[in-house]
């Protein structure tokens, strides 16, 4: 197991290197120039040219790439073009908010998906199954820029229980987490249902019953553990969806997360910031997937960690 983890961590470096390279050339490849966008119509071209050279933007791309990568290796992600603050500082300012929102959304998703998924599987095609199926399709088909305002109108304006926007205490976290988490909850509950239905048809479940175990134990200990296997991969995948889905949720709730910082960076062609954000998001993503693979092997002994 340990050697597997070490090998995967080495590969992680390769993956991140791949991501950084892909991002670097792609963002520079997109038309639109950061100095233009920054200075807008104010500065004279001579000044803009000067600003570009001082920032080293006029150097050949490969040199800029080499400097950037060597900078990253020493932990220097460069300075943000506009605000003159270091990229690391801007990212670290936003990281806790993103982490909090992702944990919140994930918790909501799991709290909804597991009970709904399990109950739907226990009585397939029953009333509860169709209700949970209907609710989950609603969850998937409802975009978060629609769900957000609806939740605000109901919970903040009409009932005045929760604040409208901004990050703060636990109560600020509830609405954004529901908005971001529902699509994932819908997806997960259907996945858990279908995977659990399959497992319930297996012989070892009938054997567990033959052993005289209580139905609750048969489901939770025997069936669920086997049904978890494909679900874990889905959870790993969903982290990516959460990160990108967060952009719109962050916009609606003014949640100071990485998603909106990345979007601003892209719009302003703030190269160092975009590269820094994507590097951090990629790291989170790859580490989470490493954890999913390890839990995968921990849950399913048949899978040897080659």
């Amino acid at each position: 197991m340990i050697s597997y983890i070490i090998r995967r961590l080495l590969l992680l470096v390769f993956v991140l290197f791949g991501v950084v390279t892909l991002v670097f050339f792609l963002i520079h490849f997109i038309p639109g120039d950061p100095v233009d966008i920054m200075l807008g119509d104010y500065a004279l071209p001579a000044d803009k040219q000067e600003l570009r050279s001082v920032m080293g933007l006029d150097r050949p791309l490969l040199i800029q790439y080499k400097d950037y990568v060597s900078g990253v290796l020493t932990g220097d992600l460069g300075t943000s073009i506009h605000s003159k603050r270091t990229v690391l500082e801007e990212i670290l300012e936003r990281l806790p908010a993103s982490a909090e929102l992702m944990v919140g959304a994930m918790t909501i998703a799991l709290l909804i998906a597991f009970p709904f998924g399990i109950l739907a599987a226990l009585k397939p095609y029953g009333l509860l199954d169709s209700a949970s199926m209907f609710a989950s399709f609603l969850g998937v088909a409802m975009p978060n820029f629609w769900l957000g305002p609806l939740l605000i109108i109901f919970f903040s304006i009409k009932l005045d229980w929760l604040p409208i926007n901004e990050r703060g205490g636990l109560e600020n976290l509830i609405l954004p987490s529901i908005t971001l988490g529902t699509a994932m909850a819908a997806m997960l509950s259907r996945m858990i249902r279908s995977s659990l239905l399959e497992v319930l048809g297996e012989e070892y479940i009938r054997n567990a019953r033959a052993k005289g175990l209580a139905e609750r134990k048969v489901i939770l200990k025997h069936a669920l553990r086997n049904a978890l296997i494909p679900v874990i991969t889905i959870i790993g995948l969903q982290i990516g969806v959460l990160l990108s889905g967060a952009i719109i949720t962050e916009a609606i709730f003014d949640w100071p997360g990485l998603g909106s910082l990345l979007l601003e960076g892209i719009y302003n062609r703030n190269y160092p910031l975009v590269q820094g954000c994507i590097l951090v998001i990629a790291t989170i993503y790859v580490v989470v997937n490493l954890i999913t693979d390890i839990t995968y092997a921990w849950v399913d002994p048949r899978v040897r960690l080659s």
Partner: protein
Amino acid sequence: MNLNRSPLLQVIDLNVDFKSEGKTTAILKEISFVLEKGETLGIVGESGSGKTITVQSILNLIPTPPLSGISGKILFKDTDLLNCSQTQLRSIRGKEIAYIFQEPMTALNPVLSIGDQIMEMIRTHESTGRKSAFQKAVSLLEEVGIPSPEQRMKNFPHELSGGMRQRAMIAMALSCNPEILLADEPTTALDVTIQAQVLELFKELKQTRGTSIIFVTHDLGVIAEIADKLMVLRQGMIIEEGPLDQIFKSPQQEYTRELISLLGGE
């Protein structure tokens, strides 16, 4: 039939119907038989004759769907298993009557170790601590002839050979010293040499534990070695029943004669 003691298990007029894609078919019609203490009843029939369904209905293990209707009585120590409460049924399953499945690979939970699955059986029915449950499981594995049982406890089903897995299944079934063992073609999935060893194991258990067994198989050769009494099933009906040697010597039904002739005679 000696009268002074009632039979261990009595099945009276058992009827079972299945429903699939709107069509209801009768799987078992008017099945009645008796199992005495310490006796081994062999149930023989081609596949689809309803022999597996018969033993499964004893412990009410048939899933709905496809099960659509079940009637009759199954008396075990004056409780009718078909109409008793869930808790009563659960206290009998595995403790009084244990079931051995045909395919050990799919009947053992792939993600739990052999030790866990056996100890779980023990601790469900007997309130013993982990330590003693562990010891009991090891001794059970020894009894069924599995070498270095301590090590095997930690193994997962896919890490054992077919024979070993079947022995583990049997160990698990025996863990609470049940009165009756329902063995659903326990040897069919094994190759011949392992089959003989497992049969040998069943014979030993009959001597050492005096457990009564219902042994389901389509292979008359296997039955000949182990059963005291024989019951021949065809399309959900009992066509012949009686002590083993009587049926083998003078089979009443044409169908039974053909089955025996396939065997090449005694």
